[in-house]
């Protein structure tokens, strides 16, 4: 996050605190978010984490993906998810990891919220899929006290914006294309059906058996540090 956006976010947080002055508990809070990749061979593209108020959604299962989520799920790039969030008055803070989180590795981010209405959402692409991503749609952090830790296992969603062809030319983790504006799948977000791979009879697949996965694909650990 650059300095300008940090300042913008700080201003948003301050606004939220003032708006919540009727509630004596309303103070700035801080959360450490850890993302552990539990897959065998699905690096996670940069993880976008958004702390927001109730009512905001990065994505919702059963609805069509926003263009920003389509970009994240097809190419791995979280830039539009972050920009869209930073433009919303319902968002408290945002952060994204700079690099991929490899299988067996942890990434860590720190974000600011408020005491009384802080909700976490996140998304990150599985790079060896067409448009698969791990996601959390609205995890309420409002009841957490300083020092509390919350652990959550996340499933893999299918953005529904790109057919799951598994061909090498369409999988960014294999060097294929990332984002494509066409929506040639059913265009609703659901749980990912998994990948088939060339080792299981899909001869046109560029994926092999190591890319298969089962849920959950990641463990998210949220600790309130302030």
């Amino acid at each position, binding site marked *: 996050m650059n300095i300008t956006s940090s300042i913008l976010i700080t201003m948003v947080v301050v606004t939220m605190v003032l708006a919540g002055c009727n509630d004596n508990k309303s103070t700035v809070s801080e959360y450490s978010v850890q993302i*552990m*990749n*539990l*897959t*065998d*061979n699905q690096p996670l593209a940069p993880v976008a984490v958004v702390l927001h108020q109730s009512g905001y959604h990065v994505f919702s299962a059963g609805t069509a993906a926003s263009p920003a989520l389509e970009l994240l799920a097809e190419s791995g790039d979280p830039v539009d998810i972050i920009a869209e969030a930073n433009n919303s008055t319902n968002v408290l803070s945002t952060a994204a990891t700079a690099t991929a989180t490899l*299988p*067996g590795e*942890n990434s860590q981010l720190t974000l600011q919220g408020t005491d009384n209405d802080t909700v976490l959402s996140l998304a990150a692409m599985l790079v060896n899929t067409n448009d698969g991503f791990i996601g959390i749609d609205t995890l309420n952090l409002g009841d*957490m*006290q300083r*020092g*509390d*830790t*919350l*652990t*959550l*296992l996340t*499933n893999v969603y299918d953005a529904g914006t790109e057919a799951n062809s598994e061909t090498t030319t369409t999988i960014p983790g294999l060097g294929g294309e990332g984002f494509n504006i066409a929506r040639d799948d059913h265009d609703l977000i659901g*749980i990912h059906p998994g990948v088939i791979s060339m*080792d*299981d009879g899909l001869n046109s697949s560029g994926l092999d*058996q*190591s890319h*298969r*996965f*089962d*849920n*959950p*694909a990641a*463990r998210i650990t949220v600790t309130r540090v302030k």
Partner: protein
Amino acid sequence: MIKPISTLLSLSALAISTLALPATAANLDIKITNLTNGIYFTPLMIAAHNANTHLFQAGDVASANVQAMAEGGVTSGLAMFAQSMGADVIEDAANGLLGPTTSATINLTNSGSNNFLSLTAMMLPTNDGFVGLDSLQIPTAPGTYTYFLNAYDAGTEANDELITGGGAIGVAGIPADPGADAGNGGTGVSMIDNNTHIHIHRGTLGDTDLNGGISDLDSRIHRWLNPVAQIQITIN
């Protein structure tokens, strides 16, 4: 998948770590059900332990004790470790193998501050797959509570899916298929583990050629999806 998701969320809610813990013993009935289609659980080890003890943790490199359990079904090392941490341990909760869709119930009284429950058992036939529960906070109010468990890969042995009898640490291959549904003559699915830490098992590939192919396992019998086990805890 809606049901497992809500279970995961409720498990997570229990994971808030700073709740005050009453240091009173409880008497529990624990019923374990194997939910898979064709996978056997080797001796099931259950431990009630304190907040600082873990039999395993996803994301960590497996200890030698976890490796012995996951590759060969050997629980003695994990049991000795847990006992050294003051845990209440049941080393063979199902009296041997627990077959697909069968259940076992055991009684456990936890002592002192042993308010967390963990469980491990190798899954056969796999190379180093195991069913695991890491530090579930034991409920205190009388009642029956249901949880679903996932399959982990210890990350210590490549998933070649070949039945070779290899169950010792560091020896390739699968010790046995208790259900006798596996074939032979496979060329081997995978020669490496990409993730050498404990992680969610990607599942068995298998094939439909019992006398060759890539795998000795049968894709019609030996596949699974999470969750692979259910435990029901009754607080008496």
